[in-house]
């Protein structure tokens, strides 16, 4: 009567500290350049080496420019951080995929696509979107830098076991509705703190029918409901995705692994601390109007009016709308936009590029829109070119940039200017997230494509009926 989460978590408990956290064994630690330097510095101060260097993989992604990656990074502070990761990996004997190397990209895109992320694993990274890897049937969650240091030093972390929640989505998604819309819908219902303290398992027909890329998108956004992580039981879709990947088990090891992975599901009588059910037919293409990912609505809805907001939340609501330049009760359809961003660990995978390209094919980018189209990794870039999507994008007026986190958090020079509106396939619409004063509207690759070709917020279903 165990949940999938219980099975993996419990199997990794080295010991339980009395009236305290569990000491949890970690199979994989991913490190990027932003949240790791102080952890390595801590190891040096203590005179320690990494306990299990073979289980640690490093790559820069946040500071990397999306052009001229063959040249040194122009911003000296960014360059130093990226160089520091490279040096740390070398000094401590860790795998490192540097800029321009074929295996470089956003860490949450690269992990699954290389077979580094596998079902049944515990995975951590100093990055809240580590929840992405749960899509493969792993227990994966974001941690702070002090915790990164713990894992570097001991391959373990001290962590209280979260409560369990199952979110079931029954039925079939409508045409034009994607995994991103599913996630934005969940956030709008759950709020950004509705799953705080919980580890979520997604289940139901609509989840089963998602591709691996779609599942990665959904689990990626678990943290935006406050969840510690999100996961999906591995199945044929998962196994087919993993098979043949570079770091995936091969031969006898594959058969043995598969036999184990097939046991990774919640028992029929498993009890969750919380169960929530939604219907897929109720989900429409979504867009956000505020400054947290929970402030979203169906694209044809109106922004809520003030009376519908609780008294305690009203100041935050008004502050958000003031920042966005919107009024309560506004519709966003037809609203002029300035930028479109396709990419990030949320929507920077091949399926996202296929969806975007399928929409813009035979159409052209609107003149008032600046579009940044950024693959999540060099592998995705390669797939784009193999499938000829680059040609279609070029004909439609879109230039493909080089991989990285890019405008999702604007640590490189891909910054949305102050006051400008960006329809973004990324994960956060916080104030200043995409650049000081930038106004972010989170949406799916299809909604982004529709905005890119019309120059205004558009329901993509108007074109695909």
């Amino acid at each position, binding site marked *: 009567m165990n949940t999938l989460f219980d099975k993996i978590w419990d*199997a990794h408990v*080295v*010991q339980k*500290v*009395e*009236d*305290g*956290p569990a*000491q949890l*064994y970690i199979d994989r630690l991913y490190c990027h350049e*932003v*949240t790791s*330097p*102080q952890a390595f510095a*801590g190891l040096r*101060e203590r005179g*320690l080496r990494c306990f299990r260097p073979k289980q640690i993989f490093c790559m820069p992604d*946040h*500071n990397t420019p999306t052009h001229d990656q063959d040249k040194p990074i122009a911003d000296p*502070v*960014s360059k130093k*951080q990226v160089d*520091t990761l490279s040096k740390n990996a070398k000094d401590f004997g860790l795998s490192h995929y540097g800029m321009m190397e074929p295996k470089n990209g956003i860490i949450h895109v690269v992990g699954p696509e290389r077979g580094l992320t*596998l079902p049944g694993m515990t995975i951590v990274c100093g*990055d*809240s979107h580590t929840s992405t890897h749960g899509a493969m049937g792993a227990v994966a969650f*974001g*941690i*702070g830098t*002090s*915790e990164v*240091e*713990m894992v570097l*030093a*001991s*391959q*373990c972390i*001290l962590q209280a076991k*979260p409560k369990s929640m199952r979110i079931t989505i029954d039925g079939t998604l409508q045409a034009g509705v994607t995994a991103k819309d599913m996630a934005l819908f969940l956030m709008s219902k759950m709020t*950004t*703190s509705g799953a*705080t*303290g919980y580890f979520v398992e997604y289940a139901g027909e609509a989840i089963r029918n998602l591709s691996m890329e779609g599942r990665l998108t959904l689990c990626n956004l678990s943290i*935006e409901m406050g969840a510690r992580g999100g996961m999906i039981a591995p199945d044929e879709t998962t196994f087919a995705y993993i098979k043949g990947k570079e770091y995936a*088990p091969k031969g006898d090891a594959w058969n043995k*692994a598969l036999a184990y*992975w097939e046991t990774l599901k919640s028992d029929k009588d498993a009890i969750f601390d919380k169960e929530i059910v939604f219907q897929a037919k109720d989900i429409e293409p979504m867009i956000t109007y505020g400054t*947290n990912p929970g402030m979203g609505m169906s694209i044809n809805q109106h922004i809520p009016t003030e009376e519908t907001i609780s008294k*305690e939340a009203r*100041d*935050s609501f008004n*502050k958000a709308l003031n920042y966005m330049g919107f009024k309560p009760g506004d519709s966003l359809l037809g609203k002029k936009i300035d930028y479109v961003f396709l990419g990030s660990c949320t929507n920077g995978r091949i399926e996202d590029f296929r969806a975007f390209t399928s929409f813009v094919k035979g159409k052209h980018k609107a003149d008032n829109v600046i579009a940044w189209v950024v693959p999540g990794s060099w592998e995705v870039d390669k797939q784009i070119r193999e499938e000829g999507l680059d040609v279609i994008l070029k004909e439609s007026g879109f230039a493909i940039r080089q991989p990285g986190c890019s405008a999702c*958090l604007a*640590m490189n020079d891909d910054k949305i200017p102050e006051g400008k509106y960006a329809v973004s396939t990324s994960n*956060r619409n*916080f*104030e*200043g*997230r995409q650049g*000081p004063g930038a106004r972010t509207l989170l949406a799916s690759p299809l909604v982004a494509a529709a905005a890119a070709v019309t120059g205004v917020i558009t329901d993509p279903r108007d074109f695909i009926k």
Partner: protein
Amino acid sequence: MPLKQKDKTMKEKFNILTATCVPLPLQNVDTDQIIPARFLKATDKKGFGDNLFRDWRYDKQGNKTSFVLNDPTYADSKVLVAGKNFGSGSSREHAAWAIAGYGFRAVISCFFADIFRNNALNNFVLPVVVSEPFLAELFETIKNNPKAIIKIDLPAQTVTNITTGNSEKFEINSYKKHCLENGLDDIDFLLSNKDKIEDWEKKHVQA
């Protein structure tokens, strides 16, 4: 409890704190506001306090705004009091470094995001969860008297609004409480258990 930390990792101990508070009655304050991403490029932990709430504290010319941290009334405050779901979003521990670096020793709210709560504890900043009525009353108390005092007693696990006399118990597990009271962190605890880690590895041949 088998804690064997050494002096070299000692941090600032937390026992009883009596201080004034900075009120921030907004909900869902995310870590991108606490410390914007463009300030995350450092490779050490110093200086983040200067950029705490940077884009709320300063306008784009770098002039101070009317944001509460710029109000000299609150210059000596050691406690930040914030609305529901404080510290949501990014896992950046830089947010905890900024709050600690600015001089805060505790944050009071009715609800914290999970990762921020861990990060705060690992930096000896105490996240104190209070009830919504207690929080609402505290905001009211500070509004009426910006110099109102709060007392946080970690050994007793109580938080007291000295003005009204209202007091509440708060939760913290005894392991982390022991760490805070004694200035200890988790790494030496983990290192002292290496035999247990190796035993676990022997029993779990990885797929």
